[in-house]
């Protein structure tokens, strides 16, 4: 990260982003008036579409399907070059040839969540009723809504039971929602750096981000698309604040310390003198090139509302009563956004339901982001969990 330019070279245009919203370069499943998406807020969303990517081949008995659920700012491009940023897939450390999720062995599906901005219907999509961008007219969506939409996609793909559902952070929330809502359709679940409910501190950080977006004069109550503008500054600030929560004090210190950016002495100005400032500004400005501000509001809101126990009379264990799914829960020692205590509470509830669960806390100073980084112990555990589940499931495979 050292040597990152304070001003990125924008190879990406806003046109690329908005094109992907309605005409994604990935596969798209369209659901017409006969198949509305029933949302938790009481509205039937119709028509709607889900953009998705698949890797590998579905076996003849349809037993090797794996669904990957992406995090807040992720998308379906899990293991291929991103059509907007040109960067490699966001989880190609876990997914790919020789990786724990090898397309030679599994049929891997990853879809953009409802409310997202990479091709699935969301606030940046065109509202067919008005011909204009939805903006704040788009209904507020929840994690269960995202999962309900994914289940419709999985139906469409002709898959009954998923061999595994895998995800970290907001993706992990979806994994848990899958097991609570469709326990018989999930053979194994790998839930990483997540929680069964969003904490007060996390809601607070999200509110900070949303207020930063809304304070940008270019936001226009969410109707910026009609004006051909985008609240870049507000969204960049939201991303900068959020990015700090994805790291850790130790990781920031190790990466940047108090080192200066391309200079020896302070400039006695509000320039990005420190490398850490330069890094954060880069994170903010590169993010706004690929992400829609309203979508950010909706997805953070969905995470805030998430509370599995609340949907089951306040008793988390009831959500998993009698479940046969094999669980693997992973947390990271330096993750203060989804600390180990949250995973432990989940594991206790799973134990109380007599579920088959593995739980590993991995030591790292890289914070919440560790699940996206090269952490060998995490890959070893993921691989072993999937192999063991594959053996129990009777999957024929090459390496386990």
């Amino acid at each position, binding site marked *: 990260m050292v040597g990152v330019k304070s001003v990125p070279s924008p190879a990406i245009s806003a046109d690329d982003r908005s094109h992907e919203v309605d005409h994604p370069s990935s596969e798209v499943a369209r659901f017409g008036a006969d198949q509305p998406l029933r949302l938790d807020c009481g509205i039937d969303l119709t028509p709607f579409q889900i953009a998705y990517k698949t890797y590998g081949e579905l076996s003849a008995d349809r037993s090797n399907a794996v669904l990957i659920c992406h995090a807040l700012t992720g998308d379906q491009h899990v293991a291929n070059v991103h059509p907007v940023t040109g960067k490699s897939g966001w989880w190609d450390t876990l997914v790919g040839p020789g990786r724990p999720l090898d397309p030679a062995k599994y049929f891997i599906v990853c879809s953009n969540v409802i409310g997202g901005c990479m091709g699935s219907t969301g606030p940046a999509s065109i509202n067919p009723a008005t011909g204009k961008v939805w903006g704040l007219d788009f209904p507020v969506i929840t994690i269960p809504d995202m999962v309900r939409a994914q289940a419709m996609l999985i139906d469409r793909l002709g898959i009954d039971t998923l061999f595994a559902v895998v995800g970290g952070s907001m993706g992990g929330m979806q994994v848990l929602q899958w097991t609570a809502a469709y326990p018989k359709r999930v053979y194994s679940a790998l839930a990483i750096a997540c929680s069964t409910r969003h904490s007060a501190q996390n809601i607070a950080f999200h509110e900070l981000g949303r207020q930063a977006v809304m304070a940008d004069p270019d936001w226009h109550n969410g109707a910026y698309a009609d004006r051909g503008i985008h609240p870049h500054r507000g969204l960049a600030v939201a991303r900068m604040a959020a990015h700090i929560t994805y790291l850790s004090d130790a990781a920031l210190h190790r990466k940047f310390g108090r080192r200066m950016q391309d200079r020896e002495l302070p400039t006695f100005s509000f320039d990005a003198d420190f490398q850490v400032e330069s890094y954060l500004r880069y994170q903010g400005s590169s993010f706004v090139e690929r992400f829609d501000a309203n979508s950010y509001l909706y997805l953070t809101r969905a995470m805030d509302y998430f509370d599995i126990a609340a949907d089951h009379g306040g008793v988390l264990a009831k959500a998993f009563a009698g479940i046969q799914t094999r669980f693997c829960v992973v947390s990271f020692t330096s993750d203060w956004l989804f600390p180990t205590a949250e995973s432990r509470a989940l594991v206790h509830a799973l134990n109380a339901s007599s579920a*088959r669960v*593995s*739980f590993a806390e991995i030591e790292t100073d890289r914070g919440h982001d560790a699940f996206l980084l090269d952490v060998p112990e995490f890959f070893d555990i993921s691989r*072993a969990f999937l192999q063991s589940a594959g053996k129990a499931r009777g999957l024929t495979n090459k390496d386990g």
Partner: protein
Amino acid sequence: MSVQEVLPLEGLVSEPSGSFRADHLLVAEMVKPGSKVLDVGCGDGDLLQLLETRGIDGRGIELSREGVNRCVAKGLAVVQGDADTDLVNYPDDAFDYVILSQTLQATRQPKVVLENLLRIGRRAIVSFPNFGFWRMRLQLLVGGHMPRTENLPASWYDTANIHFCTIKDFVELCDAIGVKMERAEALDLYGRPLRLRLPWWVWNLFGEQGVFLLSRGQGK
């Protein structure tokens, strides 16, 4: 139930085989195939792996993060947890057997742990080092030191074992809390069962560790 009634049972025929420890093989033979088992303090998961080879649905709890991660990396269903604090999270009758192998002496409240084992599991298998073993006695009597052995090499100031007991002590605890002893074995220094029908005091003197198959007593 008196100690004499329980202890001098026929020894099991269990030769060390493969890479599995003799005491693990003995424990595994006490578990009926096809049952559901929780191994409390499962270490590196060797016993769980042995159980899985016999078609047993095994789960584990382990205190050390390194141990847990090694288990999970072997594909075992193991969670990080503490026998003293985390057993309360499991419902009654969740398992056919709950195993506490060489862990009882490291718990803060062995009696509460034992009661929890037999609440969660219909049966419990408990093994522990016998502090009545003659070499232990000799070290204290002659050497004047807290005993240390090959299997328990730590000094008194850095050992995790805080509640040592003898076979006799354990049997008395089982009687006191109304636990039924279905089977009892004393193992020698090499983990082999003492085969002969011997009086209990011989077991307490020559058994390096005790292995007990327990179930809920009357009125419990």
